């Protein structure tokens, strides 16, 4: 696996004091925290920083890590030397989703939760696990089966808890909305000592769609109109997830007006609506004919769009 240079990740020197490391973490955590960060790779960076801090903030782990030496470079192929951590005792659990976020590099050095203690002894229900699943809008309309890859704690053949990749096939029910969760019983963290496994909660979100914007059950679509359609009224064709429909545009329609197509949003009880947000698109004044027509309008229509501004 790849070596991770935790000092470089945190932007501190190898001789940095615990205070300096804490300060560096504060700054980086604030910068990359997924709930507030604007950086595009915030989530990945945040996990990286979190892992680096997990090691460097703990004098025991830091000392052990320093033992590997300063000659390794990030990204280099690496395997922990045998007995590298002799004499060290790593404490601290990896509860909840913390463990699932650590890299293979971390796991190989510091491991996961301890082996099951004794036979028939420590019995506990596994913790619930959370993951996010991105689906297409079309999946919500017709239902679908999606394959999901995630890193989650699992029991290996020796009964140790390790973090590994998992693939699941999940039924996406028709009518699912962004923000809802799909709860998969027993698919979370395995239990200890024969305890039941926790549940897996999948938070659903939609991938951006080329046409529609989803808000809860409702969908929004920008529908361009020609100037004459907006001015004179018209019957125009509009796409909907369920197929094209004819919509009637009233005369003197201004841009921004919404037409509501009831029941054509995301299916459900009740189904959402599809809102057509009417826009006016101007034919370009490229040809002589187009220019002439525009000039005629300018001359003969006596129209001041800025009158309400007092100019």
């Amino acid at each position, binding site marked *: 696996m790849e070596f991770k240079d935790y000092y470089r990740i945190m932007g501190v020197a190898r001789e940095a004091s615990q205070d300096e490391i804490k300060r560096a973490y*504060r700054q980086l*955590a*604030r910068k990359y*925290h*997924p*709930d*507030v960060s604007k950086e595009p790779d915030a989530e990945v960076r*945040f996990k990286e920083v*979190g892992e680096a801090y997990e090691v460097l903030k703990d004098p025991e782990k830091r000392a052990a890590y320093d033992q590997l030496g300063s000659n390794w470079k990030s990204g280099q192929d690496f395997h922990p030397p045998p007995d590298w951590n002799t004499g060290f005792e790593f404490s601290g659990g990896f*509860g*909840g*989703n913390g463990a699932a976020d650590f890299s293979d590099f971390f796991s190989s050095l510091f491991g996961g939760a301890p082996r099951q203690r004794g036979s028939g002894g420590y019995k506990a*229900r596994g*913790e*619930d696990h*959370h993951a996010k699943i991105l689906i297409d809008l079309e999946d919500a309309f017709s239902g679908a*089966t999606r394959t999901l890859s995630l890193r989650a704690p699992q029991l290996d053949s020796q009964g140790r808890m390790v973090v590994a990749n998992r*693939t*699941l*096939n*999940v*039924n996406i*029910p028709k009518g*699912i909305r962004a*923000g*809802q*969760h*799909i*709860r*998969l*019983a027993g*698919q979370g963290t395995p239990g200890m000592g024969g305890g039941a496994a*926790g*549940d*897996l*909660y*999948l*938070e659903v979100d939609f991938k951006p769609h080329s046409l529609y*914007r989803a*808000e809860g059950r409702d969908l*929004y679509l*920008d529908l361009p109109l020609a100037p004459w359609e907006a001015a004179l009224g018209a019957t125009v064709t509009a796409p909907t997830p369920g197929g094209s429909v004819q919509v009637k545009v009233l005369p003197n329609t201004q841009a921004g007006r919404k037409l509501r197509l009831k029941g054509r949003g995301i299916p459900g009880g009740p189904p959402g609506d599809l*809102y057509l*947000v009417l826009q006016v698109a101007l034919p370009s004044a490229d040809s002589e004919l187009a220019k002439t027509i525009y000039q005629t309008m300018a001359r003969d229509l006596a129209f001041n769009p800025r009158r309400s501004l007092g100019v």
Partner: protein
Amino acid sequence: MDEILTGVVVDETGTLTLAEFACACGTETTWVLDLVAEEVLHPAGGDPEGWRFGGQELTRARRFQRLQRDLGANLDAVAVILELLDEIDLLKGRLRRAGLE
């Protein structure tokens, strides 16, 4: 694995009991009780026995947890941050509806 898993949809409105909710958050029920007392979480139902938490509360609770744990902020500060984030979500929704996002 070829098995296709079917789950239960956790709606925005309440379906999870206090115990289930605490489990889903990976916390003790006392933590959840604190948050309800601070009016950060608003479960449906009258008393803790009858409380029902929905998916929206789950998302908020986990967001709260992350901020509290990862930024080391105290409960009052996190409550304010959460409200601000809720408002940002609301505004982003409006921008999306207007086709501006």
